[in-house]
C-alpha cells in the first residue's frame, strides 16, 4: 500500500521534473530527455497502480510496454528531425563560407 504510493509520488515528481525540463531546457536533446523523464514518471505511476490491489495487475504492465514503444518511436522521430535540421544548417553555413 505504502510502497505503491511511494512509487506513485516519485512518478509524479519525475513527471514534474520532466515538465520543468521540457519548458526550461534550451537544447532539443535536453528537451527530449526531459520528455522521456516525464514518460518514465507516468510509467511509474502506472506500474504503481498495478500493485495497488491485492494481486499484480498485468494490464498496466502491458500499457507500460506499449508506452515505452511509443516513447521510443517519438524520441526517434524527434532526433531524426533535429539531426536533419542541423544538417541543413551546416550545409547552409558551408555554402555561405564557400
Amino acid at each position, binding site marked *: 500500500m505504502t510502497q505503491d504510493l511511494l512509487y506513485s509520488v516519485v512518478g509524479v515528481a519525475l513527471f514534474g521534473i520532466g*515538465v520543468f525540463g*521540457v*519548458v*526550461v531546457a534550451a537544447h532539443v536533446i535536453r528537451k527530449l530527455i526531459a520528455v522521456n523523464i516525464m514518460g518514465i514518471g507516468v510509467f511509474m505511476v502506472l506500474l504503481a497502480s498495478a500493485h495497488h490491489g491485492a494481486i499484480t495487475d498485468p494490464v498496466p504492465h502491458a500499457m507500460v510496454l506499449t508506452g515505452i514503444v511509443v516513447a521510443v518511436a517519438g524520441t526517434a522521430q524527434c532526433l531524426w528531425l533535429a539531426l536533419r535540421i542541423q544538417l541543413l544548417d551546416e550545409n547552409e553555413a558551408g555554402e555561405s563560407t564557400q
Partner: protein
Amino acid sequence: MVLNNLLPLFIVLSALLPGLLIFCIGEQRLLLRRMLNLGANIACIGLIMLLISGVYSGEVFETRLPLLPGMDLVLHADTLSLLFVSLSGLLWFLTTIYAIGYFENTENRSRFFGFFCLCVAATLGIALAGNLITFLIFYELLTLTTYPLVVHKGNAASLRAGRIYLTYTLIGGALLLAGVVWLKAIAGPLDFTVTGVLSGMPQLDPGHLKIIFALLIVGLGVKAALVPLHGWLPVAMAAPAPVSALLHAVAVVKAGAFGIIRVVYDVYGIEFARELGVTSMLAAVAAFTIVYGSVRALFQDDIKKRLAYSTVSQVSYIALGTAIAGPIATIGGMVHLVHQGLMKITMFFCAGNLAETMGIHKVSEMNGVGRRMPFTMAAFTIAALGMIGLPPLAGFVSKWYLGLGALEVGAHWVLFILAASSLLNAIYFLPMLYAAWFKPSDRALPAKRGITEAPWMLLVPPVVTAALALAVGVFANNVISPLNWAKLIATLEYGQVFERGTESIQLALPLLSLVVITPLLLALGLLIPVTRRMCIRLVPCAALPALAAALLLPDQLNILPGLFFGSVLSLDQTSQTLLLLAAILWLIAAIYGSNYLAGDKHLTRYTLYFLLCMTGSFGLTLSQDLFGFITFFTLMSFSAYGLVVHAGTDEAMRAGKTYMQWVVIGEVLLFAALIGLAINNGESPGKINTASQPVWVSWLLMLGFGIKAGLLATHSWLPRAHPVAPLPASALLSGLMVKAGLIGWWRFLPLGEVALEYVGVTLLTLGISGAFFAVAVGITQRNPKTLLAYSTISQMGIIATGVGAGLMTPDLWPLLSSALLLYAIHHGLAKAALFLSVGVAPALATNSPRRWLVWAGILIPAMAMVGLPFTSGALAKSALKTSLVEPAWITDLLLITAIGTTLLMLRFVDLLRSSSHGAVLTSANFNSRLFVYGMLVLLVVIGVYWLPQADPFIAHSFSYQALWSSLWPPIVGALIFLVAGDYFARSATIPAGDVIVFVEKFCDRLKKILKDTGHFFSDCFTHITGRYARVSMVMFESRYSQLMVLQVHPGVAFVGILLCFFLLLVVG
C-alpha cells in the same frame, strides 16, 4: 400547383444559374455570353410577368425549402415583393444592355457578368424572401456578390472602395444577424405576414423588441445608407458605371430600404411598431439623412459623388415613408422604391455616358454638353427634375404621397423636410442642367463638333428609364402603375381601401385634351430633325384648338382617370374666359415671334420652350385637379426659364438665375400648400374643396402664387426676367403668365366661402403697396421693357388687392370675381400689346405715313392701361371700383394708382420715342408684324366689352361719375409728368429687381463667409469620416512585420493552464 410552388425559385434561379454558367465559359466566348445574359434576362422578366398575373388573380406562390428544423428557406410572392422583383428584373435587363456596351473590349468580362447575375439573383431573392432568415441569407449574399463588382477595376481607389464597402456592410450584416437570431430565439420562425408577426405576440418584452429593432434597422441601415452609416456609398463610386447604377438604383441601397419596410410592416407590424415607439426614431434618422445627404451633395464636384449623396438622401424617403406609419405615407415610401430606382439609374447611366464618351467626370466640366449629347442629357434632365420632385415626374408622386401621409398622421414637420430636400435637390441639380444646356462649352471636347452621342447600347437604357420615370408619374393612376401596386399593399397592411384607378373615362370631346396635346405634339416633333422645320412653321396653329375651345365649347368636363392621379380638365365660364385670353395671346405671340425671331440661332430651342410653356399655360387654365394644375404650372414655370435666358447674355443668365430661384421657392411652397389642400380634400379627383382648408395652407397658397403674380417682396424676379426675354416671350410673361398666380388664388383659396381676415389683409396690403412701390421704382427705369415689367407688378398689385379684399369679405366675391377677371383680361391684352409695341417702335423714327399708325398703336394700349374713358381699362377699373367697396379706403387708393400708371405710361412712351431714334428697321416683313400688332390693339380696345363678365359693369362704366373718375387721375398724372418728367429722366436708375440687388450684395458677402464656414464644416466632415476610414485602414492595411505573439512563453502558458484547471476544478 407545382408551378406555383416553384415559380419564385425559378425566378431566383433564372439569374443565379446564368451567373454560374458565365463563370464556366471562357473569357472570349462573347456571343455565347451575351446570349446567355439576355436570354436569362428575358426569361426572368417572363417569369415575373407570370408571377404578377398570378398574384393579381389571387394565386399564392411560395417555395419552401427546409433549412434548419423550424426554419425554412421561404420564397414567397406577395404584392410588396412584386414591386421590388419587377423593378429588379426590368432594370437588370436594361443594365445588362448597358453593361455590354460599357465593357466592350475590356478584360475580365466573364467575371463581371457572372457576379452581376449573382448580384441580381441575390436581389431577387431579397425581394421574394418570405421570412427574415431567408432575407438575411440573400442580404448577405448580395454583400458578397457586389464586392467583386465594386473592385472590378482593380485600381487603388476601387480596392479602397471595396474595403470600405465590405467593412460597413459586414458590420451591418453582423448586427442584423444578431437581431435576427435574437428575434428568432424569442419569436420563432419569422415568416413575413401582412400585419406583422410580432403584433400577435403580446407576451414579448417590449424592451427586448426595441433593442432588436435597433439592431435590425442599423443592420439594414448600412445598405440603405442611413446617416451615419452611409460612408461606403460615396466611396463606392469608384466602381464602373453599370455597377454604380445597379448599386445605387436597385440592388444594394434598395435592399436595405426594402428590408426596413419588411421589418416595420411584416415583422413588427406597423401598428405594433408605432405602439413600441420605434418608428419615430426611424423617422428622425431618415429625416436627418434626407437633409444631410442633400447638403453633402451640394459640395461635391464629382458627378457620381454628387449622385451618390443624392442617393443617400433619396433612399431615406423610403425609410421615412415607412416610419411615418400612415397608410398614405406607406404608399409614398413604397412607390419611391420604384421611382427613385428609375430616376437614379437613369442618372448613373448618363453619368457613365458622359464619362465614357466625353471623359467628363466633374460637374464643372459639364458646360455645354447638352448640345453634344442631347439624348443623354435629356434623359438626365428628366431624371434630375424628377428627383427635385417636379410634377408630373416620378419623384413628385412619391413626395406627394409622403407629404399627404405625413399630414394624415399629423407629422407636419415632414413637410419641412420634404420642402428643404426639394430645395436642396434643386440647388445641386439645376446648376448641372444649366451648365449642360445653357453654358457654352469651354473645353476642347474630343472629336468633331456637333452631336457626339454614346453608342446605342449605352444610350437606349437611360432613355428608356427616363421615359419610364416620366410615364410612372404621368400615368400614376393607371391600373398597372407602381403607385397602384403600392396602394394595394397599403390596403392589405391597413385594411383600408384606397381610391384606385377608376375605369370610367369621361371624354366629352377630344378637343379639350387636344388643347393641351397639340403644343406637346409639336414640341415632340421638334426633337425629330426631319419634322423640325415644319413644326416651327406650325407653331401658331398650336394655339388654335385652344381658341376654338374657348370660343365654341360650352361647359365641358374631361376626366382621364389614368392620367396623373385622375386628371380632370374642365371648361367653365371663368376658365373659358381665361383660356380665350391665353389662346389669343399665344396665337399672337406665335405669329409675332415667327416674324421677330426669324433667323435666330437658337430658334429650335426657343420654339421648344415656347410650346412647352404654351402647354403649361393652357393646361393650368383647364385643370381642375391638384396634380394636373401643379403639373402644368410647373411645366410653364420651368419652360419659361428657357425663354428668359434665350438671349444668352450675362444679363439674361443672371435674370434666369433669379427667376429660377423664385420658381423653385414657389414650387416648394405650393407643394406644401397643395398637399395640405389634398389631405382635406380626400383623394377623389374632381372639384377641389377649398372651404375647409387650414389657415397655414392659405398662407402658403397666398405666398406661393404671389411669387408668380409678382406680389411685393416676392416680385424681384419679374423686372429682371421680363425685359430680357425676346419680345413675344416678354409679352406672354407679363401679359399671361403672371396671371397663373391669379388663377391659382382663384382656384385654391376659399374665395367667397370663408373669410380669412389675416391672409386677406396681408394680401391686400402687399398688393396695394406693390402697386405704388412698383410705380416709384419703374419711373426711374431707362429700359422701356423694364418699365413695363414694373408696370406689371403694379397692375398685379391691384389685382392682388382685389383678391385680398375678396378674402376678407366673402360677400363681395361674386361681383368682385367678374371685375378681377375683366381686369386681368384687360391687363393681359394691354400689357402684351405694350411689350410688342417695343418691337414696332423703330417705325416711329421713319418718315413713312404708317408711323402715325404705329403711334396710335402704341398710345391706345397705353391709354387703356391708364384707364382713359372708353378703353378696356376704363371698364375694368370702373368694374373694380364698383365691386371693391370694402374696405372703403381702398377705392380711393385704387384711384391714386391710376396716377402712377399714367406716369409710367407717359414715361414709357417717352422712352420709346427716344430709343427709337437710333434704331434701324431692317426686317422685311415689318408690315406683317405691324398687322399682328394691330390686331392685338384692336382687341385691347374692344375685347373686354364682349365678355359675359362685363355685363354688370358696362352700364356703370359709362356713367358720368365713372367717366370723371377715370379721367382725373390721368390728368393729374400728366400734369405731374409735365412738371417732373425731366427729373424722372435724369434720376438715377434703380437697378432692376430693386430689393433683390441689395440682398444679392449682402448674399455675396455672406457667401464668402459661408463658403469659409462650409469649408470648415466639410473639413470637419471629412475629418470625422476620415477617422472612420483611418480606423478601417488600420484594420486593413497596417503591417506589423513582427507578429505580436503573446509574450508569455508557451511553456509557462502550458503550466499556467494546468494550474488554472486545478484551481477551477477544486474551487468548483
